[in-house]
């Protein structure tokens, strides 16, 4: 086997500035897209649950399209496709201290839109999983829909879907490599660039794979920390549906 260990160790332990910049882009794009996608997903989940057709139908269509087409196609479509059709062109934004290039914006938009569709379904399932009796109790106390969502249902939804969100971000970290197709110099594209100059494919892809493994491992620890912090003991894991299974009525009025 032809494996250049010193090359491998060098790129693994002494990454170049370009490589570190790629790492930074991967992390930033993933975090921003996950946050935007979650916000979008929350809105889409509510729209999807709404009785009004003008909310419900667009939400359904959005989720259907984004979950039904490849992410890679969506990325190219939004950046290159829109520009080619002269629908919309992502221009660089100069913030003074830094420039956010058009392809980074398009990458984030595509990843967020895609993530939003999945998050919408996750959040919707999480909302529906909260016992409806609590919603009725909140209503009976005079709470409006939004108030009871905010105070009663969503806090429980969040706890329930936290492991799933963690899983989604793990996927997001790896899916962010797809924006390399539109020229965003994140980890994978940087690796490819170095590869085209050195042809040390096996060593370089080992390095990039290990970097992703490191990112997802760190995230695994962070996720565990968040989950333990948001008090799992408060979750009603021990609540049993008493009236239905475990007890009978002592002086039942019927039968």
């Amino acid at each position, binding site marked *: 086997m032809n494996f250049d260990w010193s090359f491998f160790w060098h790129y693994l332990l002494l990454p170049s500035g370009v490589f570190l910049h790629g790492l930074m882009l991967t992390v930033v794009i993933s975090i921003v897209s996950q946050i935007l996608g979650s916000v979008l997903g929350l809105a889409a989940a509510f729209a999807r649950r709404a009785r009004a057709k003008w909310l419900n139908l667009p939400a359904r269509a959005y989720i259907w399209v984004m979950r039904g087409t490849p992410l890679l196609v969506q990325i190219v479509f939004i950046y290159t496709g829109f520009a080619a059709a002269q629908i919309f062109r992502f221009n660089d934004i100069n913030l003074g201290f830094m420039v956010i290039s058009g392809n980074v914006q398009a990458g984030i938009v595509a990843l967020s839109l895609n993530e939003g569709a999945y998050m919408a379904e996750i959040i919707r399932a999480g909302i529906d999983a909260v016992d409806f009796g609590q919603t009725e109790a909140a209503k009976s106390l005079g709470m409006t829909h939004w108030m009871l969502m905010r105070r009663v249902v969503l806090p429980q939804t969040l706890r329930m879907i936290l492991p799933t969100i963690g899983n989604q971000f793990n996927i997001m970290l790896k899916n962010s490599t797809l924006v390399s197709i539109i020229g965003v110099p994140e980890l994978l594209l940087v690796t490819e660039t170095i590869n085209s100059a050195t042809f040390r494919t096996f060593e370089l892809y080992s390095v990039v794979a290990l970097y992703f493994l490191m990112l997802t491992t760190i995230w695994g620890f962070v996720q565990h920390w968040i989950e333990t912090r948001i008090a799992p003991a408060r979750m009603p894991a021990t609540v049993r549906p008493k*009236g239905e299974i475990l007890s009978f009525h002592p002086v039942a009025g019927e039968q």
Partner: protein
Amino acid sequence: MSEAILSAIGGVPQADSDEVIVASNVEKWFGNTKILDDVSLTVRQGQAIAIIGPSGSGKTTFLRCINHLESIQRGRITVNGYLIGYRERNGALIEDKERNIARQRQDIGMVFQRFNLFQNMSALRNIAAAPIHVRGMAQAEAFEIARALLARVGLADKQDAYPAQLSGGQQQRVAIARALAMRPKVMLFDEPTSALDPEMVGEVLAVIRELAAEGMTMLIVTHEMAFARQVADHIVVMDQGRIIEQGAPSVVFESPTHDRTKLLLRAIL
């Protein structure tokens, strides 16, 4: 219970009109099935009325119509003098705005068969949440009332416990305290002991009995005949969506006139 429960909320809440609940000719359909058929009932200030009847007789549905958790198709229900769930326009009833319905529900306490405590809140927060967020009460005041209520239902030491850490009987007592914290003009009890283990029924009934003794206006759907007889000053018997008989407990229990009532009571007593 050494101290009166209602003293924790400043005494017996008084409704604006003597007739706290007036239901007239209420009709309710689920699809093609008539659930409530021409139900009329008046609950006056200070009355404790028990509704009994076989399963499927519509008693729980009727109770849920009173705070508009269920819609009605005919008739009208007023609480505290105001039409609930609907507005009248040109003689027709149209569904009211959510905000208005929510405002009226503030005055109607409800206790559910399955407790329905908020699982993400401690016992204390369960009780204080609505006074704070709905009534806009200061946190300190709301927690003080919540603590007093918890003490009166015998759970002073459970204020930080989450519902999952409480027994069914304890949860139901917290649920009663939660409803009372809003100073409701009337309390609706929907089979409050049906989901409890036998040994916990007594502690919940004791609280409800105490409330009745203190003069709280109440409408109780129950299967506990002995309890109904003891606590209520008026018994309503429902069957197949209709009120078939009503009157003083002694009359209904000792000399029922309707055959269905006789059958129902024979099955139990």
